């Protein structure tokens, strides 16, 4: 009994050390335009990984590869490999819809559905066909996890768009976790929020990291130091034909990236001297 438990938790440990995402020399194109070049990295489970770097360095583009959302852009294509738990994300037999059910996303602009707060949360369970015995419970649990429950519990029927920007973004986070995904991708989730809402969201991230793997794109370096376990610094440079492409400069524990960066451009960026 005891030993089996240990074996199980060992297996759990073993499994939890496997990277959630792994990319090998990933090149991302929009049409002929090379947006991101040669990214090879691993994203660790149950950690917060931050992508930082100047505008136009392909952070968001790379992030949207992880849940196949770039597929929606007609000119998008890529070379190289991206794996999700050792499955090739872009293999022919991979269903992007199934990918997105496992990998939730929070966008830069809060984008609640023009539906009631309740239905915003219930939407994911309904469209993914989750077997839910008690939808009310799921709604409450998700809103509590997103630290929004107390503010909206008396107006669950109100339209999600009637909330303030910060509340809307937490509603979007609640929506993303309602389907208990494996990973949550966040594309500058705080860029349109005021400092108080930002802090609430950051607190929330810390709590979510017990259950979820989180990848967050941010322009705010303080935010990266506050929330991220791992940080990846991206930069952009002009190729021979004058077009700018993004690439991964340096990737490691947040503390090391900020205190002892190996690359000079990282050093310059994190000390605020450019970008």
């Amino acid at each position, binding site marked *: 009994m005891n030993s089996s438990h240990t074996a199980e938790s060992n297996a759990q440990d073993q499994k939890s050390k496997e990277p959630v995402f792994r990319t090998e020399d990933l090149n991302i194109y929009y049409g002929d335009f090379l947006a991101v070049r040669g990214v090879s990295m691993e994203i660790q489970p149950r950690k917060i990984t931050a992508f930082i770097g100047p505008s136009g360095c392909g952070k968001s583009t790379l992030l949207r590869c992880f849940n196949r959302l770039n597929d929606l852009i007609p000119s998008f294509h890529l070379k190289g490999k991206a794996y999700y738990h050792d499955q090739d994300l872009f293999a022919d037999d991979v269903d992007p819809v199934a990918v997105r059910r496992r990998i939730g996303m929070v966008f830069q602009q809060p984008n609640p559905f023009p539906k009631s707060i309740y239905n915003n949360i219930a939407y994911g369970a309904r*469209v993914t066909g989750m077997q839910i015995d008690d939808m009310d419970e799921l709604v409450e649990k998700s809103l509590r996890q997103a630290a929004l429950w107390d503010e909206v519990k008396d107006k669950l029927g109100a339209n999600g768009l009637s909330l303030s920007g910060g509340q809307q973004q937490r509603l979007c986070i609640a929506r993303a976790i309602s389907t208990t995904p494996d990973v949550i991708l966040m594309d500058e989730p705080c860029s349109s929020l005021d400092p108080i809402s930002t802090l609430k969201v950051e607190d929330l991230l810390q709590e979510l990291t017990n259950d979820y793997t989180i990848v967050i794109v941010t322009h705010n370096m303080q935010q990266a130091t506050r929330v991220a376990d791992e940080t990846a610094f991206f930069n952009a440079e002009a190729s021979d034909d004058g077009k700018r492409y993004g690439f991964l400069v340096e990737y490691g524990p947040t503390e090391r990236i900020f205190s002892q960066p190996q690359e000079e451009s990282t050093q310059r960026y994190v000390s605020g001297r450019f970008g």
Partner: protein
Amino acid sequence: MTSHSQADSRQPDQNAKNITRKKGSRQSLGETAWTVVAGLCLLTALVPLFLVIAYVLVQGFSRLDVAAFTRLPPPPLSANEGGFANALAGTLIMVAIGALISVPFGVLAAIYLAEFSSGQIPRWIRFATNVLSGVPSILMGVFIYGLLVLPFFGFSAIAGGAALAVLMLPIIVRTTDESLQIVPQSVRWASLGMGASKFQTVLRVVLPAALPAIATGLTLAVARAAGETAPLIFTALFAQYWTDDLLSPIASLSVLVYNFAAVPYENQRELAWAASLILVLIVLLTSILSRWATRKQVY
């Protein structure tokens, strides 16, 4: 020298701090003049509208009695004042047939255009739709005359409804297409990001969000069709009596106005005015309905 030029350059600065309104300056005169011109143009544009509504009201209101809604059109010179009961029913029936045909096709075509098409195809379909909406309505009548009236049905409610459907189709496609495009892309991404399929996204998120705007387009299309005369002359013709099947000629308000407005018989002319008033009221009512629908719009 230096100090002198400095004093000079300070001079305009002093003026720049003056923020009181200067009467009679070129700028303020021009502003007044253009405001007056624009106001006059606005009045000129509104005059025909008010004249039409006022005149139709004055002429038509006196004959707007119970008989008008219950009786059949009168023969010329008869003491019987008559009514346009069959024409009102005919208009409603044909608009209903037209909507029944054009709404499903139009809305689904627009959904395809806005949500599922890609490449050059949607551009050409939109272009064709615009051309179709510019085609004179009398051609719609001739088209259905050649397509349905001559070979199959004869003059009939079905043919009339079909002509109205062709007329409504481009309006419905265009307004629905525009309504769907107004829904922000980010909401579609949110839904797809939740693991919804494209179909679920359109059905559960995009369509509900666009529904008020779509409803507005539909009511405007109905209003337009209800007032059309030319397509019905070639397809539905007219009937003095009640029509009990959809395959016989049928009366309509607009054709009744067309038939009765220019005759020398007072009783028929009065009825034409009353029917015109009803047509104006139908357009007014649908416009108010569409306004009401738009109020609920989210985007």
